[in-house]
């Protein structure tokens, strides 16, 4: 369960003038003639409130720079709120695109280390090992360093490791985007399992069909605020597509399912 209470996140960017490291700037700063460069504030999240219940899978959609990833990082406790607060049950785990675990280690070691880091005992880690490797589908590559993996394989293994444990809150930031169709089906099923076990899942994805298939609620963000949100996933997705000038999706009037398979994301 996650409660986001009037959350505001402000990034402070120091010395956006671009001459931060130059000797003259440092000297002036040291002499007290100049304060720490020009601090620019970026108000990334502007007063968002919502409650995510156990068993919710919430899709977060919006343009680039609308604050989706920032919201997830704030829920994970990686960013301090400027005002307001985020409340969670237990720790939230964030899976991002470039979240390589330990690049120069083999997949095998990454699996074991990941399990142990999540607080499993050695026996538990050993017991889970086979199922994680099977789930990830990386096959023989498990014995090679992770830096030799394709981005898709890397994200599959990371997801497999993270999904091996029950998470109160799992945050997925485009981490499934590079997986192939087969992996999407698996991860979709795994997310449903986590939801059934009373976990809360957040999914940031530009592939809107994935959101439609996986999520029971959707939050549409723009410029750090919520434009729309609710459990009419298809309705909100359609309005978002409409607002971004995309071609409307043809849907089955009864089930709301897409009539033709969209290729890639709409945005």
């Amino acid at each position: 369960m996650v409660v986001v209470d009037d959350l505001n996140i402000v990034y402070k960017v120091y010395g956006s003038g671009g001459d931060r490291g130059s000797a003259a700037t440092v000297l002036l700063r040291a002499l007290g003639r100049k304060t720490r460069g020009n601090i620019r504030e970026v108000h990334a999240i502007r007063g968002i409130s919502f409650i995510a219940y156990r068993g919710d899978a919430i899709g977060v959609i919006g343009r680039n720079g609308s604050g989706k990833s920032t919201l997830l990082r704030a829920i994970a406790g990686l960013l301090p709120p400027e005002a307001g607060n985020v409340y969670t049950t237990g720790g939230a785990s964030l899976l991002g695109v470039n979240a390589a675990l330990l690049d120069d280690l083999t997949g095998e070691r990454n699996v074991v280390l990941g399990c142990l880091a999540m607080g499993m005992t050695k026996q538990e880690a050993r017991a889970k090992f086979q199922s994680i490797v099977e789930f990830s589908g990386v096959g023989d590559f498990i014995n090679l360093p992770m830096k030799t993996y394709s981005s898709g394989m890397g994200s599959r293994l990371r997801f497999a490791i993270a999904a091996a444990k029950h998470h109160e809150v799992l945050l997925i930031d485009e981490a499934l985007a590079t997986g192939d169709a087969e992996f999407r089906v698996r991860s979709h099923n795994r997310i449903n399992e986590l939801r059934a076990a009373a976990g809360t899942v957040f999914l940031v994805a530009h592939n809107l069909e994935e959101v439609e298939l996986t999520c029971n609620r959707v939050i549409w963000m723009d410029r750090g605020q919520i434009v729309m949100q609710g459990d009419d996933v298809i309705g909100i997705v359609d309005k978002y597509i409409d607002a971004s000038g995309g071609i409307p999706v043809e849907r089955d009037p009864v089930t709301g399912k897409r009539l033709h398979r969209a290729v890639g994301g709409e945005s």
Partner: protein
Amino acid sequence: MSDPKVPLPTLLSGGDDPGAVRIAGPGQLQAGVAVMSPDLASEPLGDYALRHGLRPSAERPPVFTYLGELWRRRHFILAFATARNIAMYTEAKLGQIWQVLTPLLNAGVYFLIFGLLVPINRGIPNYLAFLVTGVFVFNFTQRCFISTSSVVTESLPLIRALQFPRAALPLAYVMIELEQMALAMAVLVVIVLATGEPVTWYWLLVIPALLLQTIFNIGIGLFAARLGAQVNDFSQLLPFLMRTWLYLSGVLFSIQNLGLIKNSFLASHQWVVPVLQVNPAAVYITLVRNAIMATERLSAPGSRPYDAAKCSVWQDAVRHGANLPASQQYDSAYCAASAHVTILHFWYFGIGWAALALVVGFFFFWRAETRYGRG
């Protein structure tokens, strides 16, 4: 801003009243009209969250919970250390042989320079063993300090992806260095034996000495990990700091002997001698030297009753760089006229520094626990 007096228009999922959830254009604050959950109508969201047992996500865990979590991660710490150790050498052709080769090469360089080219023993009976012991023991602390200062930056993806007490990372790095140190000790034993030092029961004292040093290193490792994560300039300053510390810690010379040499700076500023002697690096170096080098134990000032005449002969010889006959090489032992730092004091300081560093380092690191993932 964070403490609304009226309940917020909470944007809950529509639930039983789907018609109530609806729209506004981009950029409008809190667009969309909320459906109030029945039990939310009268209380702010924060209270609601706390009432349901939720905690602020950026909140630091209490100390004992944290220590408990850390203890649960002990296998992770060891596995992480082993894995990193292996990864570190996979690129090199000679692989893990480097773990032994590095200290050997180090010792070789020092032997070449200080053993053959510039014999500046300054009244130390077994200078080569003295030097190599000092270098190896100091290296242990130095490597811990340098490697932990970048642990947070290096492990950022891991920190962001998984929840675990971050102190596990600097701890693992110190474990890596401990393993490295164990191999270096094996090399050291061979060198010390080769220089003619006898094997005695005193050698067992190496174990508590290195244990204390490891605890001390964990403390400064935690300290360096936070500094390195938050102050980018720290890594630029570090090599300079470490070199200064090396020169002040009596690795290349004996602090005590310098204080005995007439007309030297330390002789005229006697108070500096104990200050340098009790600095943590010097303490652990002295403890290890005393454990494995009989020549150190025999020549330590104060190990014989004060004898002005014998001491004076020794002082003059050392000052003029003259070679002492074998019978007089240990005569610095006669030089302690008054109160001085004895080996027992070194043990007290070794325990004290270890405890102090561990407590201060832990709290310093723990206080920033929720900030390490930001990068």
